[in-house]
């Protein structure tokens, strides 16, 4: 497996680039069209969260594998204000950014594995993985 590729998230244009990168890697490892669209959409949500709430950060895109099944792992990290109440942030419809409040909770449903590490003032680190079926 090739090592992770890191991309910066600093502008809206970067969000588009992240989306394109995730789409091409997802297609490369053979995810179905539906799964490609799901992981791309999740990447788009999480990248925009990094931009809106932390003002910028980075994402690592990595191909992973569990023996037979290939997968795609994305690690979004930022040094922003962090999340004080993770349970509340993961609730459908809860928003502090003026959006629909579905970005974080919806992304969790779009991927197979979702891991969120955050504390106030410590930044946020979200790891998501999508496995090929």
């Amino acid at each position: 497996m090739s090592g992770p590729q890191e991309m910066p998230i600093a502008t809206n244009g970067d969000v588009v680039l992240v989306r394109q990168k995730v789409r091409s890697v997802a297609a490369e490892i053979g995810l179905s069209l539906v799964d490609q669209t799901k992981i791309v959409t999740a990447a788009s949500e999480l990248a925009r969260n990094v931009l809106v709430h932390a003002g910028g950060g980075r994402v690592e895109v990595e191909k992973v594998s569990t023996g037979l099944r290939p997968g795609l792992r994305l690690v979004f990290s930022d040094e922003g204000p962090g999340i004080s109440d993770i349970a509340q942030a993961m609730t459908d419809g809860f928003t502090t950014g003026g959006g629909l409040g579905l970005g974080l909770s919806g992304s969790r449903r779009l991927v197979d594995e979702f891991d969120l590490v955050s504390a106030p003032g410590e930044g946020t680190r979200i790891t998501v993985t999508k496995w090929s079926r």
Partner: protein
Amino acid sequence: MTVPADAARRRIVEIFISEEGPLLRRWSQISGAPIDELRDLHQALRTALAGDADLADVRGLLGELSRARARQGYTPSDTARVVFSLKEAVYEQVEADGQGDALRGFAWLSRLIDDLGLFTFETYSAAREKIIIDQAEQLLELSTPVVKLWEGIVAVPLVGTLDSARTQVVMEKLLQTLVDTGSEHAVIDITGVPAVDTEVAQHLLKTVVAARLMGAECVISGIRPQIAHTIVTLGIEFGDIVTKASLADALAYALSRSGVQLKGAATTRVAVRAERD
């Protein structure tokens, strides 16, 4: 500046001025630039060298030259070569002169030309960036046409990324077209939108609500299977907004809503589409 260095400088400026004719011809030959363009540069450089070495005029001319070249599609190397080739042209004259002063002077002039070359490069890339920004703006305008499908029905085929700036343009254009054409139905087609995330969905919802406020009914079409899947998983609700799989379905729906009777074909077409999907 020490005395010998001063003499070297004087000597190179003398060569620069006295050998103007051959120098310009050779410079033009190496760089491939027209001699008239170079004559202006030579003039400005000569004034600067003979006087207080104030390069403002030279930089102004070079800036114009590199901007013009960036627009005409010259490569950066071609553009910088115009400046750097002056070195070669001058060196040939210095060699013909064959004196130590002239050679030492050449080293000084060479550094100056390097600076000017780098300046050309910077101006060139700045001009290129400006062109890219302009084009991005033009693309924003170009890529959001509002087309009339039928009397009273307009459509907006969206292609590419739907960000806030784009949505703003789309919304403005759509609302204006609704007024201009007196249409009561609008179809927003998202076949060309690669991913619908919460931001895109929110923009779409806002556009539909704005159109509704003006008394027009919106249909969102072009929802492909993978997009439908994603929207449901994300948990986005389109509420009572009518959505259709294809633009044809949306048109058929809008036509029937506005009371246009289609002979025969309409129902068949929907059935054919359902099978293919």
